[in-house]
């Protein structure tokens, strides 16, 4: 299958290694990947802020970029939710509605794509660490992806998967929310980050690079662990690519 990579703007600019890992895993499984360089951002910042007219322009453009792609796969539950769930709402009753629905049907979150579309749970990776998984809210509740990343992690050699007691709680990122309401956002990071770190894991695995930004940002600055080690976040694709940082 020819897979079109959906590299969200944040991944493109700030965590390119995540995009590279996605391509590595998919290619290792025998699929060709393309990157359409016309892509920029999915428009979620404007959409979430209420500026739907602006978001609509960006969305229509993105739909054009991925025109004809067999499968569009992105390493972010949030950005994929934007395309799959919110583009159809944003473009409802416009001439672009059908195209939005068509793209929605071809767009997948990375872990979900491996398990549900490709039917793969074991990608042959090894990662000798204790990890916990952080559910990003958009992946969890808009896309209903919960078990897939865990299935993938359980198949990784030498990996120990533990759950935290706030598994379904939000990390508090929420895009612009994190800087418009920094005190609430930080309090949420404290609840979630603390719960994740108390599992005494080496890594917090996530499918959302912006959740990682929030959790890492809070933990690196604030977490005081008895052992002196602070867990780091890592993207699921990086774990599956088998190349720890």
């Amino acid at each position, binding site marked *: 299958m020819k897979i079109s990579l959906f590299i969200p703007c944040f991944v493109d600019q*700030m965590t390119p290694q995540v995009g590279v890992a996605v391509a590595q895993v998919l290619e290792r499984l025998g699929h060709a990947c393309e990157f359409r*360089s016309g892509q920029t951002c999915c428009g979620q910042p404007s959409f979430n802020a209420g500026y739907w007219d*602006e978001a609509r322009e960006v969305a229509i453009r993105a739909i054009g970029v991925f025109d004809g792609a067999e499968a569009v796969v992105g390493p972010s539950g949030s950005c994929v939710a934007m395309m799959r769930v919110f583009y159809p709402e944003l473009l409802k009753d416009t001439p672009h509605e059908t195209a939005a629905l068509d793209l929605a049907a071809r767009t997948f979150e990375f872990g979900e794509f491996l398990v549900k579309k490709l039917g793969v749970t074991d990608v042959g990776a090894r990662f000798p660490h204790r990890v916990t998984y952080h559910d990003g809210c958009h992946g969890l*509740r808009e896309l209903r992806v919960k078990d897939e990343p865990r299935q993938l992690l359980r198949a990784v050699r030498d990996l120990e998967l533990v759950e935290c007691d706030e598994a379904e709680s939000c990390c508090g990122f929420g895009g612009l929310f994190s800087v418009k309401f920094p005190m609430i956002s930080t309090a*949420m990071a404290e*609840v979630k980050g603390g719960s994740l770190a108390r599992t005494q894991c080496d890594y917090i695995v996530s499918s959302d690079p912006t959740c990682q930004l929030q959790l890492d940002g809070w933990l690196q600055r604030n977490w005081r662990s008895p052992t002196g080690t602070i867990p780091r976040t890592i993207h699921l694709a990086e774990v599956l690519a088998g190349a720890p940082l």
Partner: protein
Amino acid sequence: MIAQDAQSPQWAKKKFLHDAKVHVQDTGHRTFVQKALGGYFLSRDAQKARYRDWEQARDAASLAKWSAVNRLDELLPLFVANFEANGGQVHWARDAEEARRIILDLVREAKAKAIIKSKCMTSEEIHLNAALEKDGYGVIESDLGEFIQQLRGEPPYHFVFPCMHVRREEISELFGKFLGTPPTNSPEELTMIARRHMRQLYVDADVGITGANFLVAETGQISITENEGNARLTAALPRVHISLSGIEKVVEHLDDLAVLLPMLATAGAGQQMTCYNTLYSGPRRDGECDGPDEMHLVLLDNSRTAILADPEQRDSLHCIRCGACLNVCPIFKNVGGFTYGTTYQGPIGSVITPHLRGLSDWNHLSAASSLCGACSDVCPVRIDIHHHLLHNRRNAARTVPNRWEKFGHQIFVIVASRPWLFAAGGAIFRHTLGMLKRLPVPLLRDWLATRALPAAPRKSFRQQWRQAGKDSL
């Protein structure tokens, strides 16, 4: 608290930001509230497990409310006809002021000397107690939690658990101060103190004021759910019973309660059933030994018809005020109930308050959310709560846009529409981030105040891809 609508623009937002900041620093309080909800989660899950299919039950509950809310024009008159046939009297109130006036008139006509009241959030919405007190009528809250809040001089902290933020020692102290009782740490004893205090008050009161959980159209009955039995006494002992209810509380069939009552109890409080579920069918009839002489129902609109007119958010009228969305909301749990400054706290409060009190003053509540969606997942009547926060944001951007914000998003569109500009902008951002971090750049500064920010990579993904010779389009 009386609405302070006349204050400076954005006062509500400024107060929210201020109170949120203060509250999140109170780790003790946050942990206490978090812990207080711990037991709820356990019992809720145990009770949910008793349902053959919780999701199907949600479908049924939401359908019952949907079909009633979408046929209010037909069901409200049906309810009223049946209620009146049962001997009750109906009063229509367009807004809070009208509702207050109607109730004051009824109280005056009854020549009331003492008024007792059971839990009723709609009365908080119209600031009823303050109005009654202003006219010289004493009102006693008979629900334990509300009574405690009344003694503390505070509004409810959570619309189902009004005093969940208060420690037992504080309650004991409060009772000592107002009722002269000795200190105790036993919840049973505290309850008994309030009960003993209350008994005579029921007997003395001439007017009892209650809310309503459901109005059953086909029978004309008012359904009230409670745990303490205080609403029964409030409705039955005084000579005049006044019930205050929003018009959206109507359901068509008595049978609808078979799903709504247990779900209300389980979703909101983790109970199988609330202890007392009573149907009130009019005043005392000839030959009956108890019940009020008169029974009045005040039906309140107060902008509910405006929500009804909005098909997108109409389902927010399904709300049965169970409180489940507050219990799971990370915003509520971290900023606390008072920070909202609204009658209805939490996610559903953030959705409906802009409708009740104005979008320009109250849209910040819709913005103050990470849109995690935990609320919509637990809502027993399937209100699309967190998406309505988005809808409020959109409506605000349309009707009361912030000029600078809009400008920012227009710039964003220009950049996002031109890959070369996006790439160039990204490169500049990455290469200057180290320097920007040391400058007081708005937003960036807000991030850095509490969180670290990683160094930016030298090359973007698109650069790496191109250099690997893989560019395809």
